[in-house]
């Protein structure tokens, strides 16, 4: 089987039947030649053909050190070229709102309440969106002509039933206005063209379907392309891990436009940095402030300050609770309901300037509860203003429960579903000693005997994202666009950026073992191997669908 050639060690005598009498001990070490596979399995999204040779040539230690310092790895030019067309990934939230407006924002633009884009094409687009919205709301607008009025029956036949090449050639030959007519009046054709379109045309099709959706598509596209192509694999794995740890939900209102900036500016720069910085970046991110409602949480206002018609507002403890339960201490980390309320009071006034327009974090002193608070036994004196929240972050970031909770989560992702306590303790000690230096915590883990043990080797079930990306990498797949891969990941149970609950997806591999998931994995494997996933082509290495759907390939 091709996979077996690609990944030696499977099916060999070494990995054959382990008899585990009690719990695994994580002490027996894997063979020296397996270490490179363990590193590639866990620190990347799965080996590509030739990766093992490359790591061996460089030296495993040196390779790991480079992965821990991603800035020293020159990025893969293929990836950079592919990312270039995804312009939303570089925009600030407010740029996203004005360049890729939702129907509501477009309406404000047309009504003159918000500035119109400067680009004439975009202006046209904004008008079209508003027309569409008005039409949907039953307001009188000029009805668009029917396809039959625009195209001859022969033309319609080509567009609707031609081969992909015929359709594309016909479309290419049309003048731009007529192309727009096709995209607007024939949604079925639009979709069919998409699968074979060059990047610029795909962009136009995305835009014609609704600019707001482009933001989402680019996010998914970017995530998958990076996971598949980036040379900075550990950084990608960690960005996924930490986004999930500080999960926000794309489909919660304004978060639609806030997640791009959140992942890029709050998560990614800190994944190998100080936990305290990562924590503060998320705490001050509009995406998190909106998702966990803190932007609306206000302290008791002095009576005259509140106008009679102003909505009654007050404390919201959603963020305060999840901050301790999910982001730092862990649910058994030793806090009480009283602490939740006190932390929520500390964060009153941490808000967003106009979230619906992609505004930034701002501290609003009038919304802040300036009284004294006590958090986990630490007194926070009255009058602290914005520093109250920062003090809470200090307390939480250096708390032993946090060190332990974070270390355990990392060990669950990288070592085993039930990581050995001794390893977690050592990682937590490093966390506390280094002031929460995440690179150092990773180093402790990677220097441990547990990480390189037989009990950790190819024993962890891949998440849907791990599985889909590792399969594409294993066959050296070439990805034109990754939307359909994102759909596959969703089908397997892990819709990207769309975990509604603040818990994020489970780090436990075993959560993904069930009948529905296995069937979806097998079907995906067959589709990928048969080149039936639009946008993805198998590379030089042919891997059979049976191998990609095999029990062995589900684990890493």
């Amino acid at each position, binding site marked *: 089987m091709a996979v077996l050639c690609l990944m030696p060690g499977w099916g060999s005598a070494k990995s054959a039947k382990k008899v585990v009498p009690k719990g695994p001990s994580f002490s027996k070490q894997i063979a020296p030649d397996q270490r490179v596979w363990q590193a590639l399995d866990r620190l990347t999204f799965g080996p590509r053909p030739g990766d093992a040779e490359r790591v061996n040539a460089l030296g495993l230690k040196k390779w790991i050190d480079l992965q821990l310092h991603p800035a020293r790895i020159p990025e893969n030019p293929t990836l950079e070229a592919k990312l270039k067309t995804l312009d939303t990934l570089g925009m600030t939230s407010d740029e996203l709102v004005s360049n890729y407006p939702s129907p509501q924002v477009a309406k404000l633009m047309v009504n003159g309440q918000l500035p119109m884009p400067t680009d004439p094409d975009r202006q046209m687009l904004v008008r079209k969106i508003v027309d569409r919205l008005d039409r949907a709301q039953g307001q009188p607008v000029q009805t668009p002509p029917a396809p039959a009025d625009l195209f001859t029956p022969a033309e319609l036949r080509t567009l609707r039933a031609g081969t992909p090449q015929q359709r594309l050639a016909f479309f290419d030959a049309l003048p731009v206005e007529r192309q727009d007519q096709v995209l607007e009046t024939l949604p079925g054709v639009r979709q069919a063209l998409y699968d074979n379109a060059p990047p610029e045309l795909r962009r136009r099709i995305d835009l014609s379907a609704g600019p707001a959706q482009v933001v989402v598509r680019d996010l998914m596209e970017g995530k998958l392309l990076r996971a598949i192509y980036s040379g900075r694999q550990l950084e990608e794995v960690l960005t996924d891990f930490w986004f999930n740890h500080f999960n926000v939900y794309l489909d919660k209102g304004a978060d639609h436009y806030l997640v791009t900036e959140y992942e890029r500016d709050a998560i990614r720069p800190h994944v190998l940095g100080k936990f305290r910085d990562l924590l503060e970046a998320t705490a001050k991110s509009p995406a998190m402030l909106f998702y966990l409602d803190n932007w*609306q949480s206000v302290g008791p206002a002095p009576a005259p300050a509140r106008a009679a018609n102003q909505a009654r*507002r007050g404390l919201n403890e959603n963020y305060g609770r999840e901050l301790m339960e999910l982001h730092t201490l862990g649910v058994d980390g030793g806090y009480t309901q009283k602490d939740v309320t006190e932390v929520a009071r500390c964060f009153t006034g941490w808000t967003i300037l106009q979230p619906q327009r992609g505004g930034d974090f701002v501290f609003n002193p009038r919304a802040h509860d300036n009284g004294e608070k006590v958090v986990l036994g630490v007194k926070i004196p009255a009058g602290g203003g914005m520093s109250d929240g920062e003090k809470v972050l200090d307390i939480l970031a250096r708390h032993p429960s946090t060190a332990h909770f974070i270390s355990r989560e990392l060990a669950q992702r990288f070592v085993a579903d039930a990581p050995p306590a001794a390893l977690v303790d050592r990682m937590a000690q490093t966390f506390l000693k280094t002031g929460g230096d995440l690179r150092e915590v990773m180093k402790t883990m990677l220097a441990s005997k547990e990480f390189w043990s037989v009990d950790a080797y190819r024993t962890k079930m891949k998440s849907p994202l791990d599985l889909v990306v590792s399969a594409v990498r294993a066959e050296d797949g070439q990805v034109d666009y990754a939307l359909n891969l994102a759909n596959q990941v969703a089908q397997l149970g892990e819709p990207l950026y769309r975990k509604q609950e603040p818990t994020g997806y489970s780090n436990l591999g075993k959560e993904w073992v069930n009948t529905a998931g*296995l069937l*979806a994995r*097998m079907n995906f494997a*067959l589709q990928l191997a048969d080149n039936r996933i639009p946008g993805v082509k198998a590379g030089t290495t042919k891997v059979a*669908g049976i191998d990609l759907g*095999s029990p062995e390939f589900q*684990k890493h």
Partner: protein
Amino acid sequence: MTNRRIFLRNSALAMVGAGAAPLWLQRALYAADAPSPRKKILVAIFQRGAADGLNVVVPHGEKAYYSLRPTLSVPRPTSSGDKRDDAAIDLDGFFGLHPSLAPLKPLFDQDHLAIVDAVGSPDPTRSHFDAQDYMESGTPGLKATASGWMNRALPPAERKVSPVRAVALGPVLPRAMSGERPAIALQTLAGFQVRDAKAAREFENLYAASEDPVLGGVGRETFEAVAMLQAIQKQTYVPAAGADYPRGRFGDSLRQIAQLIKADVGMEMAFADIGGWDHHVNEMGQRASEGQLPNLLREFGQALAAFWQDMGDRMADVALVTMSEFGRTARENGNRGTDHGHANCMFAMGGGIHGGKVYGRWPGLQPEQLYESRDLALTTDFRDVLGELVARHLGNPSLTDVFPAYAPKFLGLV
């Protein structure tokens, strides 16, 4: 654990050859095993995110409800002449249904829908994750419990067991159904297959030969279930009596549960969930009939009512029960929302359910009556409700296995 799970199984299908047995034979095999012509079926619905029970089953007779919620209450029921559509629908002079649940009112009136109020998990946690975990494991406060209550509530494997006796709708198997007895997760009936028959056989062999006991076991369960469902997944399903399931995942789930029940494939337990109940902000619009909670309740109520209608006579064998991990603060918060609270409400419906009544002792909403001065207090343990359904509806007497260290007190629901 997983090894046992494989040995526990004694599938008749394995004896006749899984892929080969025609559906009528499979049916016959399972039917022969049943003590009565048709097995009883339990359907459990989880409302994830902590639904605001006080705005679902509205205590309109409680003055404190209105003072705790100056901008977030459902108006008192109106007299018959007044056709206001945002008021509570009166049930018994004290409680009323949220107006979005109007489709359920006839079921209550026909005594097929029972409501339990001030019910929930006694554990004080206000963590969604922990509370869901406890409610699904059936052991509040105990994190180490390996299996879910529904899995333990399946009667121990008899001679022949359907591979689809426990089905959860969705991409992952919920905690409530996980455990030693086979239970399957299924996204859609139509998609529950390997689309290439030759590859399917190869996969089946590969998984059967797997050294990994978990993957091997689940792989086997998968292919047995696929074989079982092959015949029905090709049919176009038309709900009976014009039942109109709402669009969306939850309506789809209930429609497919109905389809599975009617196909007589040996399903004894089904699970579906519906998320989005965590309304910290703007729970309702300016009127109680509009906004986030009202919209979600509309979908919820329509789906349950459509299921009832679709099932028709078969509802005699079915009990459906709903739950949510905890309730929400009795007092509205500063953002026209509610924060994490304690007790909640549960629904039970079915042909054998003694409905038309709100069960449970009402603890009141006066300051001194609230749990930790903020939440609706708990007067009924959720295990009392589930335990009664397991024992008296499913006929599984071993409640000590299902809810260890707890003796459910029956309310007389069944």
